[in-house]
């Protein structure tokens, strides 16, 4: 699904953001990308969605070679992904329904299908009944759920979340993470960039640590957390590989 081979990224100002990294992410994986600020996590995501082009190496995403992809084909690559941003990136002038529907309309989906799917996705993220409200009328947690609904609405193969819990309180962060786990259970590959170690420890999964542009850890952490138990809270989940988690 995602294949990176000896990938390096050097920005025009000479900053070497990623150094010769190689990895594979298979379909259905739940992956955390962790690491300190400036480690190269954001560059990694930008390469995946082809906001940036790698300087060297080979990147294949959903069967597309991102080193050779034509500019006009990039939108079609992005349609196979859903992206959740830390700052939600919702359009204030649009209500919740239109913010989600926007992603479907942008790829030319007929209005009838938009109506049906948006209703379903808003229900999935627990926002049914809020369609007419504007982003500035709802909480940060709800805004992130709208952002998540927008990312999911086109039924993406990969969901990329860049610090999805960065701007919301711990309880809401947990809810968002639970949703991401559930989405993953339905077969979508989920890649989360975060620096919140607590969440990584609670939810587990494949943890890739990037530091100074290089992959320093790539391991799997098991937890006892069961996503089906929606009443779970951060307090009553346990980490199996606590030692590994401490090392992240």
């Amino acid at each position: 699904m995602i294949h990176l081979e000896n990938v390096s990224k050097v920005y025009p100002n000479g900053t070497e953001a990623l150094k010769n990294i190689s990895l594979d992410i298979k379909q259905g994986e739940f992956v955390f990308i962790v690491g300190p600020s400036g480690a190269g996590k954001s560059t990694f995501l930008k390469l995946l969605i082809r906001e940036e082009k790698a300087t060297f190496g080979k990147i294949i995403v959903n069967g597309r070679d991102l080193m050779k992809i034509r500019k006009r084909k990039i939108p079609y690559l992005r349609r196979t992904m859903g992206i959740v941003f830390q700052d939600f990136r919702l359009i204030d002038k649009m209500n919740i329904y239109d913010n989600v529907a926007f992603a479907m309309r942008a790829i030319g989906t007929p209005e009838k299908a938009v109506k049906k799917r948006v209703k379903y996705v808003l229900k999935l993220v627990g926002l049914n009944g809020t369609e007419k409200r504007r982003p500035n009328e709802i909480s940060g947690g709800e805004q992130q759920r709208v952002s998540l609904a927008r990312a999911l609405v086109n039924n993406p193969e990969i969901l990329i979340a860049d610090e999805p819990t960065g701007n919301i309180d711990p309880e809401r962060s947990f809810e968002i993470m639970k949703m991401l786990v559930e989405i993953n259970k339905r077969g979508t590959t989920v890649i989360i960039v975060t620096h919140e170690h607590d969440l990584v420890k609670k939810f587990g999964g494949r943890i890739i640590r990037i530091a100074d542009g290089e992959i320093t850890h790539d391991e799997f952490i098991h937890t006892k957390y069961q996503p089906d138990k929606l009443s779970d809270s951060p307090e009553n989940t346990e980490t199996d590989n606590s030692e590994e988690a401490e090392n992240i």
Partner: protein
Amino acid sequence: MKLSSIGYLFKEGFKNIWNNRMMSLASVVVLVSCLIITGAAALISVNMSTLISKVGDDNQITVFLEKELSDLDSVRLGSEIGKIKNVESYRFNSRSDVLKEYRKSLGDDIYESMQGDGNPFGNEYKVRLKDLSKYNDTVTQIQKIEGIEKVSDRSDVAGKLTKLNYFVTIVGSWVVLILAVVTLFIISNTIKMTMYSRRFEISIMKSVGATNSFVRIPFIIEAMIIGLLSGLLASAALLGMYNPVRNAASGIIGMIADSTLTFDQIWLPALTVMSVIGIMIGLIGSIISISRYLNKEGGSIIGK
């Protein structure tokens, strides 16, 4: 692009005007002001040219024929004049017609005594030229024809009118051109400001996989509607002012009333030209401005 998108994009274009009504209003105000100034300059220039051209048309020259020339020879000579390229028209004036023109000033008694052989005038032709700037050449050609006594010398007037017409055309064109460039510059900046205020929207559209044309079209439609609206408003304002200004100017210089374009002659061309210019400015300005954002990606669109 899918057919279902086209209706949506047009709807979005219209909706955007209302959603961004303050910027839309600012754009319309700027564009209307610029179009009124440019349109006024163009109308003044066109009317000046029409005025000068009409004055030029009235400026016919008189070709005096030798007194001894018979009427038949005079008619023959007329066809020679007609063959000259720059001659637009010529009208025969017999010696008795010429005398009639002086009847009032001479008085009936003297007029009667000058009938027949006592007529001091010869036959003549009133000749209109196509191009006054070729006055001297044409007069020389006429003078070469046998049987011509002299040609009335109005080279001074012809020269002045030609220079004035040339001046008005050149200056008018430059004024309109400069104003058009200034207008495009101002409009382009206004559109850039609009784009800047909506860069966030553009970045989201691109992140969800919208193609560049999908992002571009609502902005272009919006700018074209604003351009059309501005063109219509500007032409309405100009046409509303046209007759009062024309009447006021005619009060000062009488010939303006007869020698300039009437409201009926200008309203349709003015409305059409200004609407088309408004649409074109919206189209060009939006294409140039949005390209800047379409070439960027993700965070760089919103300056992150």
